[in-house]
Structure formats: structure tokens, C-alpha cells
């Protein structure tokens, strides 16, 4: 689906929902190089449960017009504009982020605390430094950047398979999704992650759920736990045997962790 905001076409999924005008809103923000399709199962769940779902494509990603942005606060400002244009009457607003998306959620909650009621952060780290080998490959638009990030994003089990989704190869899904992005997008995303700092943020009071995977090599569990230090109210769920792309590796466990927190 697409929506036009101030002359910019923005790609998103509603999770096939038909919400009431005052339905609670939930925004899903993807990670580096990805798009809204990583949230398909979570989006469809919350849409069926009456939420106004917007699983967004960030600028320059998926079906949203470019250019891609290269710092987190600018992405958060963009998100604030989208929320303002799409969510006038919502009874509450929840932001759900993955990886780079979690930084956008933190930026928005820190700088515009009144806008957001709840945060869900999957695979987070603050700061989120990116290895030089990955940054350099992304800068060169070298496919090796996709290969490295995709492999490191999956658990040991996913390298062999045994996907929870029947007949799906999570590893190849990740590869094909990342291959869709345009030149320079990955470098801008990684630069945004690498340059992210919380030093200018006040403590965040928004109730927050943090979900970590114990085999997450991109944002290790201890990094997620450290993010909790920024937060006044937080819950932590550790997923066993799960890597960085937890929405596809353990979709049911992610839903179980999210549903009570978001709907409660």
C-alpha cells in the first residue's frame, strides 16, 4: 500500500486491517536495508486485534520515495511527520522497532515523549557501532555487505534451517530482501547506526519492552540489557536459540512476548 504525505509517496502495510477511527495505533519500523515486509506476521496479528497498523518503509526503502537518510534523529523526525499525518484520533500509540528501527524509536521517545505510549525494541543496542568491514563493503555497494550482515543476523539453527514457517528458508529470505535495496542505502543506514549516540537524550519514561535473542551477533543480549539503563520502565524478554532477525526466526515467541505488553 502507499500513502501520499506532503508529496512524498510512502510504502506501508496495514496488515490487511480495517480499524475503527479511534483504534489504538501501532507503527512498525524496520532495520537497516530492510522494508515493512519483515513485520508481516506481527502486522497481521495486531490488525486482526483492532489496531491501526502501519508497518512503514523508511525513506529510500521498499516503496517509499528517497533519498535514504543517514542519521537517526532525521529518521525519527520523518516518523514524527508520518504519525502526525496518519494518526489524529488514536487512543494510544505504540512504536515497534527492530535493530536500526529501535534507535529511531528511542530518538522519538526521548525528544517527543508525549507522542508515544509504549515502545517495543527487538534486537537493540545503544550505541550501535558497525564493524569497519561491514561499513566499507556497504560503502562500495559490495554484495559482501549483504552476505555478512545476513549471515550474522541468523542463529546457528537458521544456517541449517528448520524454520518455524513451513517451507521457508529464512536465510535466503533475508538475502533476497536485502538485495532489493538501492545503491548507497545500506551505507547510509549503517552510518546512521554507527553515529548514533544517546548522550544528548534525557531518560526515557515510556514503558518499553525489550526482546533479545541469545544468539544475536549483531546486537548481543548484553547490549539490549544496557539499553534498559536508559529507560525508567522496561521489561526484558530473552529468546533462546534466536538470532537478530527474531521476527522471522521465532515469530510465535515474538508475538507471545509482544501481545500482552502492547494489548495490556
Amino acid at each position, binding site marked *: 500500500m502507499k500513502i501520499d504525505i506532503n508529496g512524498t509517496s510512502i510504502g506501508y502495510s496495514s496488515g490487511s486491517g480495517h480499524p475503527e477511527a479511534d483504534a489504538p495505533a501501532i507503527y512498525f519500523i524496520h532495520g537497516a536495508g530492510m522494508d515493512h515486509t519483515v513485520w508481516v506476521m506481527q502486522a497481521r496479528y495486531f490488525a486482526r486485534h483492532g489496531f491501526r497498523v502501519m508497518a512503514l518503509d523508511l525513506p529510500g526503502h521498499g516503496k517509499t520515495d528517497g533519498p535514504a537518510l543517514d542519521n537517526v534523529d532525521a529518521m525519527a523526525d520523518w516518523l514524527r511527520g508520518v504519525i502526525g499525518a496518519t494518526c489524529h484520533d488514536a487512543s494510544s500509540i505504540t512504536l515497534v522497532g527492530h535493530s536500526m528501527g529501535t534507535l529511531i524509536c528511542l530518538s522519538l521517545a526521548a525528544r517527543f515523549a508525549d507522542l508515544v505510549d509504549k515502545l517495543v525494541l527487538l534486537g537493540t543496542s545503544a550505541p550501535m557501532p558497525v564493524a569497519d568491514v561491514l561499513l566499507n563493503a556497504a560503502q562500495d555497494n559490495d554484495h559482501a555487505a549483504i552476505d555478512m550482515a*545476513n549471515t550474522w543476523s541468523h542463529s546457528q539453527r537458521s544456517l541449517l534451517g528448520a524454520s518455524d*514457517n513451513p*517451507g521457508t528458508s529464512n536465510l535466503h529470505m*533475508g*538475502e*533476497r530482501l536485502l538485495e532489493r535495496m538501492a545503491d548507497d542505502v545500506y551505507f547510509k543506514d549503517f552510518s546512521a547506526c554507527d553515529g548514533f549516540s544517546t548522550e544528548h537524550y534525557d531518560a526515557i519514561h515510556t514503558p518499553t519492552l525489550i526482546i533479545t535473542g541469545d544468539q544475536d551477533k549483531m546486537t548481543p543480549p548484553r547490549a539490549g540489557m544496557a539499553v534498559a539503563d536508559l529507560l525508567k520502565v522496561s521489561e526484558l524478554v530473552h529468546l533462546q536459540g534466536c538470532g537478530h532477525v527474531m521476527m522471522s526466526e521465532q515469530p*510465535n515467541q515474538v508475538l507471545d512476548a509482544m501481545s500482552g505488553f502492547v494489548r495490556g
Partner: protein
Amino acid sequence: MTDSKHRSPQGMGFDTLSLHAGQVPDPTTGARATPIYQSAAFVFPDSDAAAGLFNIERAGHVYSRLSNPTNAVLEERMAALDHGVGSVVTASGQAALHLAITTILSAGDHIVSSRSVYGGTHNLLEYTLSRFGISTTFVDPRDMSAFAGAIQPNTKLIFGEVLGNPGLEVLDIPSLSELAHSHHLPLLIDATFVTPYLCQPIELGADLVVHSATKFLSGHGVVVGGVVVDGGTFDWQSSDKFPTLSEPYVGFHDLVFADEFGPAAFITRARKEGIRDFGACMAPMTAFQILQGLETLPLRMQKHVANALEVATYLEQHDLVASVSYPGLPSHPDYELAQTMLPKGCGAVFSFELKDGREAGRAFIEGLSVFSHLANVGDAKSLVIHPASTTHHRVDEASLRAAGIGPGLVRLSIGLEDSKDLINDLKGGLRAVEKLNKQRASQVAKPLEAVS
């Protein structure tokens, strides 16, 4: 990205994936082998989870026509081996081809296909699908301009087999992919004869792959099955040609598959519509037996192609043989292309032409004892068939020639026996042809003697 070639993730190697992909030891029992989940349906944890499974928001199984845990192991293993985002296994290879086509084509649509395809495929495309409004134009698989010239405004698919039938033409997949994509069309490849061990069409530019799993993937010849693999490479929203994926589907509450499932749009619709409604699903016992075969696929294919090359080389040098059509031989017109596209070998199915026609073919077949005379390929055991005296016995010579089948054409599927035993067996068949020729010569000579 600038480097837009689709690649395999940096994961495990092919041999490891053949054994392990899609399966871990059973978490409940510790079973190392893949369990056979011989159950038609699966219990819902609660009502909300049940609704979630139907709504594609939870992972799991509902009913074995749609998915089954044993089948899912085979599906994920084939996706891993073929570098796809997913696959669906089917009741047969024909069911896989039908599922692939009907997921994206509707009445009024058109296919451009290689004319060198399996006879059953030709029947489906030429006669059966045309009854449902899907037409096909067949072209020479070596002629890229013929493919281009056959594309119409309503063309939705380009199709071919890696190795043609019966001429073993090697399909130039990279060139055909480039052509298809320049017209915003997906390329579907039947890779039955080569398996992912010898050729991974998605790596070469194809978007969809089908196999008859009855053949080399299984290797044992005890089951019938098929699989369709989605490369996740084609952008179904790049044009308005594919409304089944790019527009709301009333049959699933206005779901737009390409919008919500991205690279998995095709395979998700194939499962949520094609398998659901046409119902040509695979039995879990069949999936288990195919998995047993896949575990040894790399080893078997190495022996298959080594034996095939040895046998083909022997036959090519024999006086009674007019020609051998095997892309692994320098005499084949596509030898150079095969060296590039099929560096590990050109499969184990090939044909050769006996000089002395239909009767010679019959005598040859009946002189064999190790080769089994039947209508199949890809068994661990060597197989043979003489089309002119069996599948095409009612067809006159002119029609046979038009179909690329000479009266003395024999098709072999080379198995895993000792190559010397296979060659000795073939010698027996060729001796039977020699004997026939002598009898013929004497029958001709006697009247002449009488005259003299």
C-alpha cells in the same frame, strides 16, 4: 545494490545442506532422522492461535494438505539447495508445474516455452491448459530471437528445461533470463534432469524452478512427487501483468501478496491458494522417502555423471551407432555452453541413434539384461526405452522425425552400477542388432542366389 546478481547466503555447503537443511533432531523425542508426521490435522493451542494460523500471523501447521512437518523439512531443504526463499512439495512433478503456472497465470494469458520439453509437459501446455484459456507458443530452445519474437502482450511466463527432451539441448539460462526480465517476465525452469547439485537455475537468473522429485532427487524410484521453488527474485509489482500477486485477493480477505510478503509473495500464494484449492499435496511418507534420497544426492550425482560420460563415450565410438546426443561430449552442439553452465556434469539421461532403425532399436532393447526397460528416468538403476517401439509405436517415421525422434533412437538413464557392467550389457544389445542385421542380409541374399 550495484552488484545485483543474486547470490547464495554465506551458509553451509551443498553436501551439508543435503543432509541437514530444514531439520534438527526432534526436540521432543531426540529422533535424529526426520519423523513421519502421519497426521491429517494438527491441534490448535487455543482459539486465538487457531485464528492466527489461518490469518498467516502465526507459524505452524493446520491441515496436511496445506503443510505438514515432514513435508516442511523437504520443502526447506529444496529451498536451501536451489537457493530459493521457499518451496512447496506436490503430488508429482506435473502437479508442481501446474501449481507454478496457475499461481500467476489466468485465462487469456500466454506462455512462451521451449519446444524440447517432456511429453507430459507438452500435453499440459498444448492441450490441457488451452482448454482453460492459457495458450502456449513453442520455440527452438537454442534460438533466443524465437523466444523474443513469440512474446505477446498477454505473455506472462517463459519456460524451458535445463536439458531438452529428447535432444538434450542445453538451455542458455543466463541469456533467457536477461530476455525475460527485459520484458518484465519471470523465467520458470524445469531442472529435473540435473538437480540442484549440477545446476542451480536461480543462481543463473531463473526466478522459479520445478522438479519431478520422482527422479534423481529421490534416486530410488519408489515414490512420485514434485516441488516448486520460488527464488524470491522477481518483482511482481514491476508491471501490472501479475494481478494474482499485486492486487487484492478476494479469496484471502483482500490480501495483496506482494505487498505483505515481499520476496515470498509467489510461494505464499502457491500454498494459500494453489495447494489449498487444487489440493495436489504430497503424502508425508513420500516426503520422508525423498529426504532419504536427498541425503546422498551429491554422491549419487557424481557417480551418475561419471558413468554417463563413460557410457556415452563408448557408444559414440561404436560402428552401429549413428550418433550420441550428450552435452558432455565435444560432438554435442551445446558442449561449450554445458562446460559453463554445468561444470559438474551434464546429467545421466541421454539418447543415441542406432543406424538401422526401428527394428534395430527393438532388438537392442531386448538384448539388454542389466538395463531395465521402462518409462522413467533418474533411478539408481539404469533404465532404457526405445520410443519408436513403445511410447510412439503408433507414430509413422515422418512424424517421429518431426518430433526429433529417429526410428533407431534409444534413451538411456544411466544408473549407479559398475560402468563396465553397463558397457558389457550394452555390448549384448549391440550384438543383438548385429545378429538382426546378419539375418536381414541373408534374407536379402537368398533371392539373389536363386536368380543367379
